[in-house]
């Protein structure tokens, strides 16, 4: 039985039907990415998968139990960091650790915080507030916060969408490293608008058009690099298949023709 299941999920906003009969089965320890263009409904999908939003039809199940609110032993990384601006990096991560491990004493909690901040390379910047950190660093804190709770399920909502190409590549590599270090491996569900990113990180890639495409497995050996993506036959084939599905879906076209909305990042200064 699949560890993480979305069954018959549907959602409409008024007359607009965003999701219809979505079925997705993720095995334990798998990394699945859902690729779609903006407007395809993937944000809605991950909100429903994480329990932050309730579907109109169908349900979400984690280890057999229905998901109606954000599950315990799960963590989420958002596109716009979602760090509390009045807390330092260390305190932000600690807030998560406290909640996840209330039985630990203060020293244990702080050790955990330091451990993960150092893994993402922010040991020195632990005392800084988000307003003093760059976009890439903030996202690192968000990632550290997610891993520090040692989640069984990890949800990633276009985590690198707001970053420049170079930072994006660096953080992708770090994410691969972090996931590899975990034992047992977390089950990961990510949404992205980049097919390349999906192939780089995932075990299986699914495209979201008007419906969910069949999953395309990616069996390339780790560690994967962007260069390998250019050369490896399998990567090129997977990319072609996913691209074709998205093009055929037609929603890609109508989404592209919409004027682009500016990405609004959280104001890090309290208003």
């Amino acid at each position, binding site marked *: 039985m699949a560890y993480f299941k979305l069954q018959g999920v549907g959602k409409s906003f008024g007359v607009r039907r965003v999701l219809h009969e979505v079925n997705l089965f993720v095995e334990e320890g798998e990394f699945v990415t859902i690729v779609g263009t903006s407007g395809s409904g993937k944000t809605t999908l991950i909100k429903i998968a*994480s329990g*932050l939003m309730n579907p109109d039809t169908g349900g979400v199940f984690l280890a057999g139990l229905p998901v109606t*609110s*954000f599950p*315990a032993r*799960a*963590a*989420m990384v*958002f596109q*716009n*960091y*979602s*760090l*509390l601006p*009045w*807390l330092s990096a260390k305190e932000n991560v600690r*807030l*998560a650790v*406290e*909640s*996840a491990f209330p039985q630990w004493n203060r020293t244990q909690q702080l050790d955990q915080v330091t451990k993960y901040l150092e893994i993402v390379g922010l040991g020195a910047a632990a005392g800084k507030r988000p307003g003093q950190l760059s976009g890439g660093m903030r996202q690192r804190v968000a990632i550290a916060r997610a891993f520090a709770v040692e989640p069984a399920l990890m949800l990633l909502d276009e985590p690198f969408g707001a970053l420049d190409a170079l930072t994006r590549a660096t953080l992708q590599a770090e994410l691969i490293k972090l996931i590899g270090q975990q034992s047992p491996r977390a089950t990961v569900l990510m949404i992205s608008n980049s097919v390349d990113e999906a192939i780089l990180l995932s075990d299986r890639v699914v495209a979201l058009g008007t419906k969910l495409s069949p999953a395309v497995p990616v069996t390339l050996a780790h560690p994967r690099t962007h260069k390998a993506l250019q050369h490896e036959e399998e990567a090129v084939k997977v990319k072609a298949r996913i691209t074709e599905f998205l093009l055929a879906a037609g929603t890609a076209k109508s989404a592209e023709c919409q004027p682009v909305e500016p990405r609004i990042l*959280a*104001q890090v*200064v*309290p*208003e």
Partner: protein
Amino acid sequence: MVAAIKNFLLSLVGIALVIGVWAAVSTWFSADLPSPIKTWKESELYVLQPWEKRGEMDQGIGLMAMYSLIRVAKGFLLGILFGAPLGLLLGASQLLSKMFDPVIQVLRPISPLAWLPLGLILFRQSEPAALFTIAVCSMWPTVINTMHGVRSIPQDYVNVAKVLRLSPWKRFTKVLLPSTLPYMFTGFRLSLGIAWLVIVASEMLTGTPGVGGFLWQEYNSLVYSHILLCILTIGVVGFTLDRLMGLIEAKLRIA
């Protein structure tokens, strides 16, 4: 730097013009209105010896202002002590806010002069009545701004509370309160302004020692120059208070 000096000189010109108009009015339009010079002569003592106490109602301007400020502080704190939690509650609960919104809108515009007699009935003595009046009049900006602050919490922070599965207490202290604080503070600043207004009115009505009390007493004693002294004092103190609050508010924003 040059701009700052220029602005300062300009404001001096503005003040001089007002004094000029005052002098003109007192010379040509109203014999009762003391001229600036007369005002100064008769108020010298109070200003130059601000902390002197010569009699219950004959004290230096510094002491008078102090009495008023102490009362304001008490009433203001009382007001925000009720107002802030009320604002938080109404902001967080749709139900409660729908219940009480009309009530707030009706109570808000009521002048202190209307509340004071009620205060006197309830508390019998002028001091608690004054505090009650200050609290009831000044709390509304705090309530409303706090309410607004709670409703304006960015979705991102709400998401954080959800995905970290924070306990309600943690959610309140680590997310809601810090996020609402700047709004609350704006409310406090406005409330303080109103509290200062109210104290003068309430002192005038009850005759207690303080800037307002002194003002009314001097009016009844026909020493009009002291009225003007009080007016100026009230203005300066009010301005100073607002400036101080502004500085604190600015500190909060950077944080």
